[in-house]
C-alpha cells in the first residue's frame, strides 16, 4: 500500500517552477531515496509534504487522506516526521532536552503545567533508550552547540525518529560528513528502519550511500520526476545518466 502519495504537485517561487507536475508515491515499509542535482527541488518537496510550504496545486495523500491544507504541526502529529538538511535542534539545550521534546510531544504530555518534568521517570527512560538508538547516550548532558557535526546530525535525525513516525523524511542525513561517518550513520538508520519497521525516505548526494541503502530511487530534475525504480534500473537509465550521474561525477 502507498502510505504517502502526491498527484500533480506544483510549486513555484516567483517565476521559478521548483516542483513541476510531480506525481509519485511511497510504499509502506520501504526505505527509499530521492536524488537530483542542487536546486532540483528535493527540499522543497519535503517542505510541501510536511506543511512547511503551501503547494500551488495538486494533492498530497497520506493513507488516502488529503493533507495538503493541514498545518505543519498537525502533519507532525499524524506521524510524518522530518529531519532537516541544515540541522534544526535547540542549540543551548542538552542532547537529552532536545530529544525529550520529541518524547513529550509523542506521549502528549506537553500540557502538564505543574508536574516536575525532571521527575517523570518513564519519559526519562524513553529518552535514554532513544538516545541509545542513535548512539548519543554518552553525550546526553552535552549542549547541542558543543556537539561535533556528526553527532549533531544524528540528534536531528533522532528527534524525528523518536516520534515513531509512520513515515520519516530525512533531508541529507549525511551532509557534510567524511565518508566513513556517512556509512556509519546510514547503517544506524537502516538498523532502526528494520527494527521498528519504519518507512523512510532520504535525500542524498553521495551515490555510494544511495545505491547501498535504497530499495527504490527517485530522481528529480528541475522539479520533475525523471526516473523512478530500483537502483539497477536507475543506474542504467540513459536520461538519468545524462541529467545527473553524468555531470556529477
Amino acid at each position, binding site marked *: 500500500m502507498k502510505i504517502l502519495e502526491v498527484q500533480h504537485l506544483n510549486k513555484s517561487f516567483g517565476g521559478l517552477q521548483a516542483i513541476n507536475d510531480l506525481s509519485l508515491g511511497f510504499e509502506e515499509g520501504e526505505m527509499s531515496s530521492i536524488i537530483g542535482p542542487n536546486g532540483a527541488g528535493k527540499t522543497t518537496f519535503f517542505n510541501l509534504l*510536511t506543511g*512547511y510550504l503551501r503547494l500551488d496545486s495538486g494533492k498530497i495523500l497520506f493513507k488516502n487522506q488529503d493533507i495538503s491544507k493541514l*498545518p*505543519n*504541526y*498537525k502533519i*507532525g*502529529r499524524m506521524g510524518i*516526521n*522530518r529531519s*532537516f538538511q541544515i540541522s*534544526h*535542534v*535547540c*542549540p*543551548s*539545550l*542538552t542532547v*537529552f*532536552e*532536545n530529544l*525529550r*521534546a*520529541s518524547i*513529550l*510531544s*509523542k506521549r502528549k*504530555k*506537553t*500540557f*502538564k*503545567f*505543574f*508536574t*516536575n*518534568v*525532571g521527575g*517523570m521517570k518513564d*519519559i*526519562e527512560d524513553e529518552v535514554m533508550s532513544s538516545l541509545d538508538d542513535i548512539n548519543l547516550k554518552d553525550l*546526553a*548532558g552535552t*549542549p547541542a552547540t558543543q556537539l561535533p557535526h556528526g553527532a549533531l546530525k544524528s540528534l536531528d535525525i533522532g*528527534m*524525528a525518529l523518536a*516520534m515513531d513516525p509512520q513515515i520519516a523524511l530525512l533531508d541529507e542525513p549525511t551532509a557534510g560528513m567524511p565518508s566513513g561517518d556517512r556509512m556509519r550513520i546510514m547503517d544506524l538508520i537502516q538498523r532502526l528502519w528494520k527494527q521498528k519497521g519504519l518507512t523512510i525516505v532520504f535525500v542524498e548526494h553521495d551515490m555510494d550511500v544511495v545505491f547501498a541503502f535504497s530499495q527504490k530511487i527517485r530522481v528529480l530534475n528541475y522539479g520533475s520526476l525523471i526516473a523512478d525504480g530500483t537502483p539497477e534500473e536507475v543506474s542504467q537509465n540513459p536520461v538519468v545518466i545524462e541529467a545527473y550521474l553524468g555531470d556529477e561525477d
Partner: protein
Amino acid sequence: MWGIIFAASLIILSFVYPSEFLINLFTQILIMGLFATSLNLLVGYTGMVSFGHAGFFGVGAYTAAVILQKYSTSVGFAFGTTIVFSAIAALIIGSFCIRLGSIYFAMLTLAFNQIIYIIVIRWTDMTGGDQGLIGGIPLPGFLSTQRAYFIFTVIVVAASLVICKLVVDSPFGAILKVIRENADRAYSLGIRVKSYQLIVFVMAGIFGGISGALMSLSISGAYPDFCYWAKSAEPIFMVVVGGMNSFLGPLLGAAIFKILIAYSTMYTNLWGLIIGGVLVLIILLVRKGLADYVMEFVAARSVDGPKNLLSPKKTG
C-alpha cells in the same frame, strides 16, 4: 519549599529589624521582582521579547484600585477581578501579537501598551485620567500597617513565584524552551507553537497584573505612568541585569534596580545616569545577567556530578 523558607525569613527579618525605610524598600523590590519574573516567562523562557509589559501592570493596578475604591469590596475579590481582567487583556493582546515574528511582536506589544495608556488617560471617570486615581484606597484593618502590607506582599509574591517555578519546571515549561530555541523545529514535532505562546503570554499578563495590583495598594493610588510605555523598560532592565536564564535573576535585578534608585536619589537626581551606567557595565563586562553568571560559575565547578542531563546555564 525554598519559597516558604524565603518568605518566612523575610517576614521574621521585618520584626527583627523594623525599619520603615527597609520594609518599604523590600515591598517595592518584591513587587517589581514579581513583575520582572512575569516578563521573564516571555523573554527568558520562551524567547518572546515584549516591550509592552507595563500595560498589564497598569491593568492590574487600576483594576484593583478602582474596585476597592469605588465598590469597596474585599481584597480577595479585588485580586480575583485583577486576575480575570489581566487574563482577558492578555488573551486579546496576545492573540494579535503572537501572529508576528520577533521584532513585530515587540513593536505590537509596545503599541498595545500605548493603547492601554491612552484608555487610562481618557477614561477619566473611572481612572482619574492624567492625575491618577487619587483619594486613597481603603484597605481592611489587617493590612493597614506598613509591616502588615509587607507580609501580605511577601505571601502573594512567594505564592506567585512558586506557581511560576512549577510551570517553568513542568513539561509545558520544557516545551517553552524548545520554542525559544527553535520554533521551526517544534512544529515538526507536532507542537502547535502559537498555543504555547498564547498560554504563557496570558500567564505573564496575569502575574504582571498581580504585581500592578500590589503596587497600587501599596502606595494607595494608581497613576498613568504605571502603564506608560517607558515603564516597560524597567522590567527589561531587571531581567537583563539580574539574568534571564536563572529563575531568580529578575528578582535580583529588581533588587539592584530599586536599591540603586533608593540610595542614588539620596545624593543626586541623576539616578537615570547611574541606572544606565550599570546596564552598560553589565552588558559590556559580564555579558550576561548576574544570577546567570553565578549559576554558570557554580555549574562549571560541579560538571562531574553523577548525572547532569540538563543544560547548566538555562536552568529553571
